[in-house]
C-alpha cells in the first residue's frame, strides 16, 4: 500500500513533466499541423544553455531563466529560418525536416559539450519527506508540480482570456479569414513555436535532473513518452495532453516500480500502439489518426 502511494505520487510528478512536454507538442500541432519531432533536441539545447549559464554564474535560477529564454528564441528561429520555408504539400516533408534538425542540434551539442553525461543541478532537495512513516514527495517534486501548474495555467489564461491568445487561436483555426480580420498570421505562428519551445525547455529543465543527467540524447525517450501522452489525449486537445501526460507518468511509474525500470521503454511502445490501434483519435478528441 505504501509502495502504491509512493509510486502514484512519483508517477504524477513524472507525469507533470510529460504533460508539459505533450502540451508543447499539441500547441505546435494545432498552430501549424506539424508534430515537432525536433522538440526533444531543442529542449536539450536549452538545458545546455542553462548548464553553461549556471556554470558561469553559479546560480541555478539564472540558468533556469536562460533556458526558458533560449527555448523561446530557438522556437522562433526554427519557425522563421527553417519550418516556414518547408513545402507542406506532403506531410512527410515537415517531419523529415524536423528529424534533420534533431541530427543537427544533437551534433552541435556533441561538438560543444561532448557526449558524456553531465550532472544537472537541482534547486531543491530530491530526498522525499516522510509523513507518519510514509515516504511521499520530495521538495523537488513539489517544485515540479508548481512549475508545471503555473505554466499550464498561464497558457490556459493566455489562450482563453487575452487578445493575443484569441489571435493565435483564430490564426490556427482559419488562417485566411484571420488575415482578412487584420491578424498577423505568420507572427502568431512564430509566437506559437516560441511558446511551445519554451514550455519544452521547461520540461527538459525539470526532467533531466531526475534521470541520468544532461546528454544530447537526454530527451529522446521523454519525447516518445510525451508523444504517447499527446496521442492518448488526442493531438488536438491541450487538456487531453495534460491528462495524457499524467496517465503516462503513472503507468511508467507502476511498470518501473512493479516490473522493473528496464521495461518502461517497452511499456511506452505498447501503450502508444494500443491507443493508436484501438482509439486512434485519442481519448479526448474526435480527430482520427486514420484516413479514409
Amino acid at each position, binding site marked *: 500500500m505504501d509502495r502504491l502511494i509512493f509510486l502514484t505520487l512519483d508517477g504524477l510528478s513524472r507525469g507533470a513533466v510529460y504533460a508539459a512536454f505533450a502540451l508543447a507538442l499539441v500547441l505546435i500541432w494545432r498552430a501549424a499541423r506539424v508534430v515537432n519531432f525536433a522538440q526533444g533536441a531543442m529542449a536539450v539545447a536549452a538545458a545546455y544553455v542553462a548548464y553553461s549559464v549556471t556554470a558561469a554564474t553559479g546560480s541555478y535560477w539564472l540558468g533556469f531563466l536562460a533556458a526558458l529564454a533560449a527555448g523561446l528564441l530557438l522556437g522562433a528561429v526554427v519557425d522563421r529560418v527553417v519550418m516556414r520555408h518547408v513545402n507542406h504539400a506532403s506531410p512527410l516533408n515537415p517531419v523529415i525536416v524536423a528529424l534533420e534538425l534533431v541530427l543537427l542540434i544533437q551534433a552541435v551539442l556533441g561538438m560543444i559539450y561532448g557526449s558524456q553525461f553531465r550532472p544537472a543541478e537541482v534547486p531543491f532537495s530530491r530526498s522525499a519527506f516522510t509523513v507518519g512513516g510514509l515516504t511521499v514527495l520530495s521538495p523537488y517534486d513539489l517544485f515540479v508540480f508548481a512549475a508545471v501548474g503555473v505554466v499550464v495555467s498561464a497558457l490556459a489564461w493566455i489562450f482563453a482570456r487575452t487578445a493575443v491568445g*484569441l489571435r493565435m487561436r483564430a490564426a490556427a483555426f482559419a488562417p485566411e479569414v484571420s488575415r*482578412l480580420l487584420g491578424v498577423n498570421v505568420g507572427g502568431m505562428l512564430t509566437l506559437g513555436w516560441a511558446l511551445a519551445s519554451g514550455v519544452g525547455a521547461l520540461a527538459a529543465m525539470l526532467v533531466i535532473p531526475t534521470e541520468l543527467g544532461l546528454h544530447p540524447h537526454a530527451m529522446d525517450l521523454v519525447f516518445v513518452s510525451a508523444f504517447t501522452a499527446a496521442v492518448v489525449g488526442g493531438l488536438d486537445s491541450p487538456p487531453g495532453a495534460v491528462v495524457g501526460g499524467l496517465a503516462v507518468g503513472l503507468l511508467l511509474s507502476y511498470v518501473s516500480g512493479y516490473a522493473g525500470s528496464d521495461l518502461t521503454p517497452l511499456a511506452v511502445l505498447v501503450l502508444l500502439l494500443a491507443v493508436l490501434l484501438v482509439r486512434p483519435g485519442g481519448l479526448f478528441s474526435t480527430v482520427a489518426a486514420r484516413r479514409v
Partner: protein
Amino acid sequence: MSELGGLLVVRGLSAGYGAAPVLHDVDLTVAPGSISAVVGANGAGKTTLLRAVSGMLRPLAGRIELAGEDLRGTPVEQLVRRGMAHVPEGRGVIGELSVDENLRLGGLWRRDRADAARALDEVYQLFEPLARRRRHLGHQLSGGERQMLALGRALVGRPRLLLLDEPSLGLAPRVVAQIMALLRQLRDRTGLAVLLVEQNVRSALSVADQGVVMSLGRVAATAPAAELRDDADLRHAYLGF
C-alpha cells in the same frame, strides 16, 4: 465615369489562379456611401474579383485604389486598417470560437479600444439574436445567424468599404430581405460603401445604387441599378430572367 469621388477604383484588373487569368481588364468604381452589386452567372469571376480587391489573390495586371491610395503590395492583414472589410464566400465564421470571440476578433486590430468596445455593443444591438448567443460556438449557429455574425464582425472594424460575397446563399428569403434592408440602412446612416457580389440578382439590384454585370471574367455592363432592373435585353442576355 468619373474617377473623382470613387472610394474604390479598379482599373484594368486581370487576375486568376496559376497562369490562366479568370478576370480580364476589369474596371470598377464604388462611390463612397453607395452600394454596388456585382451580378452574373456562376463562374463569371465575381468571387475572384473580390479576392483580388482584398489582396487574397495577387493581380496579374491593373490597379486597385482605395480612397486614392494604391493597394499594390499591401498585405491582406493591413487592409482592415485602411478601412476595407471582406466577408468571404461561406462567411468565414470561425466555428471553433464563440460568437463573442468572433466579434471581438473583428476589432482587435484597432488602437482605439474604447471605440472598438462601443462598436461591439452596437453590433449586439443591431443583431439581437447574436446578443442572446454570445457564448455559443460559431458552428452551433444557424445560417442566418452566421451571416449576421460575419457581417457584425466586419462592422466592428468600422469599415468604409464592405466587400460581401453572396450573403444570401442558403438563407430564407425573409432573412435575405432583412439583410438587404440592413445594408441600405447602414449606407444611409454611416455612409458605408458596399461592394456586393450576388447570385440573387433581384434582391441585389433592389438594394443597390449601381449594378455591374459580369460575364466570363469581363464587365459586360455598368449602369445604375434601377436601369438594369428595367433593361429587359440585358436581363435576358446575362441574368436569365
